């Protein structure tokens, strides 16, 4: 049996069309998991852009700062590394005035301001330089609420973000953090990190999703109850004119760290 050229071409073209159609159908059947199957938790706290005000006058003693830092570090399994300051992991820490607000020093400023330990955390910038430099988009700005997030699964440990961040808010895991964690105190609901990734404050995205305030804000409330003051950390939506944060910003004089760099930090300080 011989097939002429015309019939051969007909068979070839028909089978090509059929096989393309077949692949498309099989492909669409295979996709059981669809993006429409996920949604936000109805109890989650939401905002257009989260922000924090740190009211320094509400922190009376060294241990008040310590409590906020411990609350943060314990709930996120942050290792306590003390043998080498370069290996320290800090999501929240304290800094002196000259380091927190450089270019604004004054030798005649009252002694208490010079040595006041300012509570530091990631500024969750409006225009974050760490996000600009990340080659894998492991750190990114969440469009929904402005949190500068870390996707530990993607981080390759290049440390560009650490060079990019003007606030020193990022720490690199030079060694496996596991041995520096107290197993009895670890939070089984939050992951640890591994050697070779960069980590920082994520504004407690996991607590916000459950409808809880960030751990440091909760700790500040406890401190306030003990001291008989209003809380020193105020958390709210910067784009909601009626939020607690906006109310304070419209009434009190506040400063931000290095606003001249144009990163638009979301953490405000009242001194």
């Amino acid at each position, binding site marked *: 049996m011989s097939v002429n050229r015309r019939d051969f071409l007909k068979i070839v073209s028909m089978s090509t069309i059929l096989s393309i159609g077949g692949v498309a159908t099989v492909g669409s059947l295979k996709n*059981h*998991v669809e*993006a429409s*199957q*996920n*949604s*936000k*938790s*109805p109890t*989650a706290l939401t905002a257009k852009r989260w922000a924090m005000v740190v009211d320094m006058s509400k922190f009376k003693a060294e241990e008040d700062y310590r409590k906020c830092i411990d609350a943060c570090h314990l709930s996120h*399994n942050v290792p306590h590394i003390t043998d080498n300051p370069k290996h320290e992991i800090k999501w929240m820490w304290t800094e002196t005035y000259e380091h927190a607000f450089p270019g604004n020093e004054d030798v005649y400023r009252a002694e208490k301001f010079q040595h006041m330990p300012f509570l530091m955390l990631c500024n969750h910038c409006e225009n974050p330089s760490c996000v600009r430099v990340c080659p894998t988009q492991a750190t*990114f700005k*969440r469009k*929904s*609420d402005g949190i500068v*997030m870390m*996707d*530990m*699964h993607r981080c390759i440990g290049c440390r560009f973000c650490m060079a990019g961040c003007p606030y020193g808010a990022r720490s690199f895991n030079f060694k496996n953090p596991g041995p520096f964690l107290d197993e009895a105190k*670890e939070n*089984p*609901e*939050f*992951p*640890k*990190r*591994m050697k070779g990734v960069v980590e920082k404050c994520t504004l407690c*995205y996991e607590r916000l*999703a459950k409808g809880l305030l960030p751990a440091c804000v909760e700790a500040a409330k406890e401190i306030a109850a003990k001291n008989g003051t209003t809380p020193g950390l105020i958390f709210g939506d910067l784009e909601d004119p009626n939020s607690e944060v906006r109310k304070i910003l419209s009434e009190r004089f506040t400063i931000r760290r290095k606003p001249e760099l144009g990163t638009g930090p979301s953490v405000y300080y009242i001194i």
Partner: protein
Amino acid sequence: MYNGGKILIGLIIFVGLVTFPFLYGGVKATAKPDPKIDTPEILKMAEKERKCVESKAFMKKEHMQLLNDWRDWVVRDGNTIYTNAEGKTFTMSLQNTCMKCHSNKSKFCDECHNYTAVKPYCWDCHIAPKEKKS
């Protein structure tokens, strides 16, 4: 045959080297993996409620894809609620949802992963449930 002796010796050495792993390790078959789902948390549930987030067949074949999607939806999109094919909702979390029922990582995850020599890096960071050493 030229150099017959040398060729024969060479052949014997060659065959010896090639068959060495089989002779040394034996040819006994590795035990088939037998993942267990008899954790106290699962046994506590009523017979009818003993269902994973999706069907057993789907989970067997696609759990890695599901976990991948869950991770992206939670970390990157900030969505934490998963609605399955039956319309039931779950919080998407490996540590707090999957492992709450499957609290036997060594008998549930590792059983097959070891057999197939798959090394997922989940547990480099995620905290596995504490298991009693038996």
